[in-house]
């Protein structure tokens, strides 16, 4: 058992799979010599050599397109898109090519690839380097979407993503890079599509993802002291979505709250809320409430960025007010 930071866990997960399978390669901007701008790929080039860990030009369409082409031809490549905001610069390759090719070719083309990217706000980087775009990816049929909240999940889900025969968008949260957690020694391989219930309670279900998970946990702890006990569900992956975990919890608690960082409209919270409003309607004892970033770009100044992203306080107050 070791204590790793979330950022170290990224490198650990990739290294585990690169050591196991020589078809796994990593490309991206500054991933090799520099070890990544977030130091998430540190040491990989030294360990696996300059051909398997390679720096690219600033050419996101080339990075994603090449990862796709290589996956068609016997590799299991990983492409890094430095900030998830930049996925927009290669969205055609991601959403129209990578996601659709298996279906459109009647299953002829398999694309075992991973696109990794640093997602989310809280770093005072401003509107073009802070977005949470997990909902962009979730809205595209053919992409799996992973967004872990702890170092151990990073390692295990990274391994699962790399081994998955489908394209996976793997979102690492910038605000979590420095967080630490225990990671068992040896090979770790998790399963995509399983949520984790990280707190147990009876009165409410709080569903969260990535950097919102620790906030939801803290909020649940505070609410617990007031007599409102909540299940906190860490979705971990958006596609496949663990509807069973959410539905089971809502059947018990009767109330659903989602805590999401992406801007309000059409986020994953809307999807989860809609599923529950359809499939678990008769279990509900009150409104489904989404706690989100407002529908704005994230501002740079710390004073207002902190107001935009859901806070522990906002979760506590929203749940409390809604449960009264």
């Amino acid at each position, binding site marked *: 058992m070791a204590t790793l930071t979330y950022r170290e866990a990224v490198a650990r997960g990739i290294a585990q799979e690169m050591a196991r399978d020589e078809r796994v390669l990593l490309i991206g901007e500054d991933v090799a010599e520099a070890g990544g701008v977030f130091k998430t790929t540190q040491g990989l080039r030294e360990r696996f050599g300059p051909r398997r860990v390679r720096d690219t030009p600033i050419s*996101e369409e080339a990075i994603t397109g090449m990862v796709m082409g290589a996956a068609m031809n016997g590799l299991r490549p990983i492409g890094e898109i430095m900030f998830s905001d930049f996925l927009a610069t290669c969205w055609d390759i991601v959403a129209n090519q990578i996601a659709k090719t298996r279906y459109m070719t009647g*299953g002829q083309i398999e694309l075992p690839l991973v696109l990794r990217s640093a997602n989310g706000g809280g770093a005072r980087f401003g509107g073009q380097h802070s977005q949470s775009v997990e909902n962009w990816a979730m809205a595209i*049929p053919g992409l799996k979407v992973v967004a872990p909240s702890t170092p151990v999940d990073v390692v295990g889900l990274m391994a699962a993503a790399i081994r*998955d025969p489908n394209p996976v968008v793997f979102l690492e949260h910038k605000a979590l890079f420095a967080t630490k957690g225990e990671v068992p020694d040896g090979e770790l391989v998790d399963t995509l599509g399983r949520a984790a219930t990280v707190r147990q309670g009876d009165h409410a279900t709080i569903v969260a993802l990535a950097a919102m998970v620790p906030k939801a946990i803290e909020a649940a702890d505070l609410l617990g002291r007031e007599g409102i006990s909540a299940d906190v569900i860490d979705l971990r992956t958006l596609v496949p979505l663990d509807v069973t975990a959410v539905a089971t919890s809502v059947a018990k608690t009767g109330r659903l709250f989602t805590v999401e960082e992406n801007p309000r409209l059409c986020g994953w919270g809307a999807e989860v809320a809609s599923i529950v409003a359809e499939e678990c309607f008769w279990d509900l004892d009150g409104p489904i409430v989404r706690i989100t970033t407002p529908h704005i770009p994230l501002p740079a100044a710390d004073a207002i960025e902190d107001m935009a992203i859901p806070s522990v306080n906002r979760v506590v107050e929203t749940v409390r007010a809604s449960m009264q």
Partner: protein
Amino acid sequence: MSDAPSNGTALGPGSHPEIAPSVRLKMYSSMWRARVFEKRVYDLFMSGLVKGTTHLGTGQEAVAAGFSTAMRDDDMVFCTYRGHNHTLLRGAPMDSLMGELLGRESGCCGGKGGSMHLTDVEQHAMGSYAIVGAHLPVAAGAAWASAERGTGQVTACFFGDGTTNIGAFHESLNIAAVWNLPVVYVCENNLYMEYTPISSVTAVPNPAADRAAAYGLEPIIVDGNDVDAVYRTALTALHRARSGGGPSLIEAQTYRHHGHSRADPGKYRPDEEVEAWMRKDPLILYRARLESLGFAASDLDQVEEAARAEIDAATAAAKEAPEPGEAVLMTDLWADGGASWRR
């Protein structure tokens, strides 16, 4: 493809001997097979059996015929929505292509792809891509994998003149050059992007060749209606790529006989231009050359007839094939064969 000249790809630049008669006959046959295929697609589109849209390669057959003949069996091809010629000549069975165009379960993509997405991975026809420019980096990636795995494969990537103005072209050519990838980029310059003359939207006269230097590459222009010239150019570029010499960017100058897509009559093109290019029909030119080289007219006629017989049989088979049913709709999104996003 199996009788592609196995020695062809071992040739270095400038060292091509005469093209063997069997190779010539094969290229003649290839062009005719493509020609009758597209003619039939046009008729079926006009009669409403091919639905949606279709982009014919008629007039541009020499490019696909020359390249496919020069390739090694396991070389890969990436092409566009105007990809029938390439997919067919790479080896995809005519009836599976026709089945796809008619939206049948027998289609190469089970009916899910349609005219713009013909694909036959078994034949290394790695797909037809319908968004301009997108397949250029994908082709680079396939080539990268060949290089890493040491398979000796070369990837050929075909696209149009209009494609040279989109960003993905630039990113792909640059990284292919920097990583010295075994990929051959072939711009089929047919003078138009849809209805717009390429010269009116492009900063240089030769949209591909005049950009080669921007990637440290040699400018290469070939008469895309002369199948022998294409074949020789292809051999050189494939050899270069296969022997570690890196990518090429080739501009093949050609013309489409039909409009851009569907029933477009192509009226935006001056009559004299169309007529001049019709006189340069690659099939007519090549028949004249083969006759002057002593090929028997009856042998050539037979090639044409075989192509006609093949397309008739393929059409009949496709028409008889069933349409895909509900069971097909929700398959093949994921590698497990299904389309479920939930647990």
